[in-house]
């Protein structure tokens, strides 16, 4: 801690940051553009000019850029200095020379950093009397709109896209006042994080294209804190709604997880909520046709179905804890299935067990960025946990930070650190079957079959700790590689091993855990991270239940009369034959879901559940963090939360059934959570993931609209012009309207949007943070159920079942899931913009094996004719098939037969 003097006021601050940060943290409104907390300083825009004095006796001082000047002991500066002010106003004026002044039609309007800064500097009169230059805009694909004339050339977009996210198809062209930020030619931005340009760009050059179709001003939308449902990382989001429809998803800062950035799947996947596939009324199958029926009829129908016999409940790793738990309460533990196959369930449970037992650290996504040696073992994290992949990309820069430290260059001096680090080695090792988006920053990559990667992993563990079992008959260069990686990991201060269940391989996860365990003996900071498939995989694993196979057995035995399936498309877990058998063996299938999945179409009764934006609930991320998402949209009845449907079912049954009494009297989410805490004590802390519905700030609920929101009658005018009371939300501490409390100090879990006059853009976040890039003023958000720092006293035994080497077979290939950023994840594929980004399925083959044309792959559900694509480096005997896209249930490796197309046999 130290203190600096700003315009005569002494402000406590910290060393190691720059003066811009220090000013902002001190509450000053110092304008800036090119600086970004995650991207550091480059001093390009010159907007943050202040006057710095060399000491108390210096009356002249000199103009410096705050973002380029480190805080030092006894710094004396002036923001108010007339010359500095004048210069800052000039900077805006220069930027405005070519800016189109199209705020009324610009989608950034009202949340535009440039608008804020313009007002802040007081620039209000145009003195440039010549013509503006104009640029041509580009079509950048389904996610991002481009309007280059609004550009002020702060260079943030390319710094983020290229330097930070590793993209290479966005660049700066030309020079002087003609600089152009775009692509060489029109075309879809390829980087997985392109959507962040929308928030990174301080003006309206890059805007959210899907949002544009249903655009509303920031001040006219309701906001709610939310959690991404498109993978298990648990990125925090803000959802915005108007006229009871979800309009967009924005990043919500979480210090430990996503911080300032989301992946495109997370940002644009929400389209499923408003898609035509949305279910809005109960549906009853009558004579093979599904027809809409009223809610009361639906519940009566269920009561009739259930009258006869046993109800079995199938939950889902993509459903909230509360929904899963309500089903558990309805059917009882003996009839509660997790909705996963035995194999899937074993994998998640193993992951949970390995993480729980890990003697080292369980680093957060943010902590991963500072890992100085990282081993990715058999998981394409860029596809399965994209935001995690972005953090690993940053970890590759650790050596350059150390070089900068040695040269006494602050780490936030971005360009300087990159210059110094030009030749610094990366500490990232990527061992995967197929190429990944991290390969370009890896010290080394190795392509091998999952079993061979697991073997390498065990060999690395043995290298580190001879007590770990040795791998016999390892090829010489594999042994050398294992030794090299082991050496790098041992030498690191914060090593990290990342694996996951993409390839459904317990051996891979065991091997990863063995390495991390071996490292933890000498390095307590040794981290382990395991990627899980769904947003609540971990929560469900902690609840436990039957596997789908067990349900199948019971069904075959005729022991089930009704299956209640919540938010689960079984066709993604079971091969078609099994689904068919299950459907045939169970008289009535009730599906509660928000989206018309293939399973829904075969159900006897379908009940419309609310999507994540329309209800509140809790998800447990792969690192064991329970997080609450909140309702932004109040859907028309009968759409309601999954757990309310289950409760309604329970109420339609004989209410005297003893185990159901609790369930039927729940009033709100807090009731569900307290029942959950009693039933599952290890999940009890999840109650505290966010304040309950009774939370009040200054005696008030929290508002979820801005003070500026347009009139209430107008908001519902699409229904009725009569004044309506704003909808009530019993599950949350939010008022659904502009009434209520709001402010930078409110609990972090309840921040529904950032606005702190005069900051109207997302940059207002700096007002909500205790330290920029550090904790929120409103405290922790979410709660970790697995302890952060492992149990160093625990001495887990090493796994000993080392797989045999992968054998190339003459007549079959090992088909591996090609998990895709767009295409493999279930819900986002109902989102039109994401669908548009999913490329057609193809069969990936080793470059040597790939003939042109198409081939036939024989999977469980029959032959699939697929175009063939060579995959560089893919090992012999392996084929890549997109997960879920070819055969819905195909998600784990299997051996399969591959044939040349009969009619294309002659071609080569």
């Amino acid at each position, binding site marked *: 801690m130290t203190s600096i003097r700003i315009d005569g006021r002494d402000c406590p601050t910290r060393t190691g940051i720059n003066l811009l940060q220090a000013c902002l943290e001190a509450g000053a409104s110092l304008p800036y553009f090119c600086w970004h907390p995650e991207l550091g300083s480059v001093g390009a825009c010159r907007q943050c000019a202040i006057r710095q004095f060399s000491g108390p006796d210096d009356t002249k001082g000199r103009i410096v850029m705050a973002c380029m000047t480190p805080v030092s002991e006894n710094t004396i500066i002036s923001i108010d200095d007339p010359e500095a002010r004048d210069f800052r106003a000039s900077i805006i004026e220069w930027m405005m020379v070519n800016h189109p002044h199209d705020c009324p039609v610009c989608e950034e309007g009202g949340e535009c950093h440039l608008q804020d800064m313009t007002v802040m500097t007081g620039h209000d009169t145009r003195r440039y009397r010549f013509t503006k230059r104009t640029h041509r805009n580009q079509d950048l694909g389904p996610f991002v709109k481009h309007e280059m004339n609004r550009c002020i050339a702060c260079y943030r977009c390319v710094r983020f896209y290229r330097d930070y996210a590793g993209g*290479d*198809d966005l*660049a*700066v*062209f*030309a020079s002087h006042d003609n600089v*152009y930020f775009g*692509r*060489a030619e029109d075309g879809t931005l390829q980087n997985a994080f392109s959507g962040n340009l929308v928030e990174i760009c301080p003006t309206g050059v890059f805007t959210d294209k899907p949002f544009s179709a249903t655009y509303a001003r920031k001040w006219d939308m309701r906001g709610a804190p939310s959690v991404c449902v498109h993978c298990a990382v648990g990125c925090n989001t803000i959802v915005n709604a108007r006229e009871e429809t979800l309009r967009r998803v924005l990043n919500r800062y979480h210090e430990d997880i996503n911080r300032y950035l989301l992946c495109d799947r997370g940002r644009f996947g929400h389209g499923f909520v408003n898609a035509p596939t949305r279910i809005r009324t109960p549906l009853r199958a009558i004579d093979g046709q599904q027809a809409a029926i009223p809610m009361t009829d639906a519940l009566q129908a269920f009561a009739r179905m259930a009258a006869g016999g046993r109800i079995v409940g199938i939950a889902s790793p993509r459903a909230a804890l509360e929904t899963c738990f309500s089903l558990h309460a309805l059917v009882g533990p003996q009839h509660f299935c997790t909705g996963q196959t035995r194999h899937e369930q074993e994998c998640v449970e193993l992951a949970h067990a390995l993480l729980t037992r890990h003697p080292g650290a369980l680093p957060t996504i943010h902590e991963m960025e500072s890992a100085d040696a990282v081993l990715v073992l058999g998981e394409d994290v860029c596809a399965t946990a994209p935001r995690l992949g972005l953090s690993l990309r940053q970890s590759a820069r650790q050596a350059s930070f150390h070089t900068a430290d040695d040269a006494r260059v602050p780490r936030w001096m971005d360009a300087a650190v990159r210059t110094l680090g030009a*030749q610094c080695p990366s500490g990232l090792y990527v061992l995967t079957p197929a190429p990944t988006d991290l390969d370009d920053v890896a010290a080394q990559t190795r392509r091998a079959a999952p079993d061979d990667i697991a073997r390498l992993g065990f060999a690395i563990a043995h290298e580190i700790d001879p007590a770990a079992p040795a791998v016999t008959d390892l090829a010489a260069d594999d042994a050398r590689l294992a030794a090299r990686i082991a050496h790098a990991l041992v030498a690191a201060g914060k090593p990290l091993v990342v694996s996951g269940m993409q390839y459904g391989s317990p051996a891979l996860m065991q091997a990863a855990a063995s390495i991390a365990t071996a490292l933890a003996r000498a390095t307590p900071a040794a981290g382990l991270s395991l990627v899980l498939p769904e947003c609540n995989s971990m929560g469900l694993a902690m609840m436990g239940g039957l596997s789908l196979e067990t349900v199948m057995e019971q069904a075959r035995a005729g022991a089930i009369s009704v299956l209640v399936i919540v938010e689960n498309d079984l066709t993604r877990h079971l091969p078609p034959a099994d689904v068919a058998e299950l459907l045939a063996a169970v008289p009535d299938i009730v599906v509660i879901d928000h989206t018309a999945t293939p399973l829904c179409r075969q159900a006897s009764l379908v009940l419309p559940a609310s999507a994540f934006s329309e209800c509140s609930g809790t998800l447990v991320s792969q690192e064991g963090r329970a997080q609450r998402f909140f309702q932004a949209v109040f859907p028309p009845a009968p759409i309601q939360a999954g757990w309310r449907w289950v409760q309604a079912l329970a109420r339609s049954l004989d209410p005297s059934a003893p185990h159901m009494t609790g369930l039927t009297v729940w009033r709100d989410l807090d009731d569900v959570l307290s029942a959950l805490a009693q039933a599952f004590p290890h999940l009890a802390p999840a109650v505290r993931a966010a304040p309950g519905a009774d939370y009040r700030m200054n005696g008030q609920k929290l508002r979820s609209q801005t003070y500026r929101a347009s009139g209430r009658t107008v908001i519902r005018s699409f229904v009725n012009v009569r004044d309506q009371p704003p909808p009530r939300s019993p599950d949350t501490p939010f008022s659904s309207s502009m009434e209520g409390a709001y402010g930078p100090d409110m609990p972090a879990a309840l921040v529904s949007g950032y606005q702190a006059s005069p900051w109207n853009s997302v940059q207002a976040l700096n007002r909500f943070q205790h330290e920029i890039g550090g904790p929120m003023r409103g405290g922790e958000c979410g709660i970790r159920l697995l302890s952060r720092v492992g149990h160093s006293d625990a001495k887990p035994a090493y796994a000993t079942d080392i797989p045999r080497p992968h054998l190339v077979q003459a007549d079959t290939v090992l088909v591996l899931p090609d998990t895709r950023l767009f295409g493999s994840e279930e819900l986002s594929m109902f989102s039109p913009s994401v669908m548009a980004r999913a490329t057609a399925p193809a069969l990936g083959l080793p470059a040597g094996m790939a003939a042109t044309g198409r081939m036939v792959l024989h999977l469980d559900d029959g032959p699939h004719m697929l175009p063939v694509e060579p995959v560089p480096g893919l090992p012999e005997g392996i084929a890549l098939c997109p997960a879920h896209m070819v055969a819905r249930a195909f998600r784990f490796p299997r051996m399969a037969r591959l044939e040349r197309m009969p009619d294309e046999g002659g071609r080569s």
Partner: protein
Amino acid sequence: MLTAEAPLSTPVRAEILALAAQEPHPRGASVAALRLVQARLGWISTVHLREVADLLGMSVDDLDGIATYFNLLFRRPVGRHVVMLCDSVSCWIMGREPLCAHMCRTLGIRPGETTADNAITLLPTVCIGHCDHAPAMLVDGTLHGDVDTATLDRLIDTLRDTP
């Protein structure tokens, strides 16, 4: 034959790879490689830009960002001969404006354009370090000083006649 659309010849590709191999990172050779292509074809077509990007392991966007940054790299076709007339201060004082106007009239083009017969492209250039012989110009890379309308006319005639 080498054209703007046909792929680069094997020797040119080999030369580019050799340039790249001399650098700590292949991108260090980007300007040299683009100059090489331009030396052969007069300009850098998108086809060739792509090819060079490939050889250097860069994205075409990245490389085009460089190609469009530098004054001497041409991303549009030029005529058989390129006349670069200095437009900096000493030449301006010594009368480059009337010379330029004369040349434009004679050729029927404006600065930055190519004659209809594709013989000559006229470009302005910044100071070429021949200020003691201003006005100065570069014709296909060769320096000419103390230029006047008479020398210009002679030069234009010769250029029109040489392939």
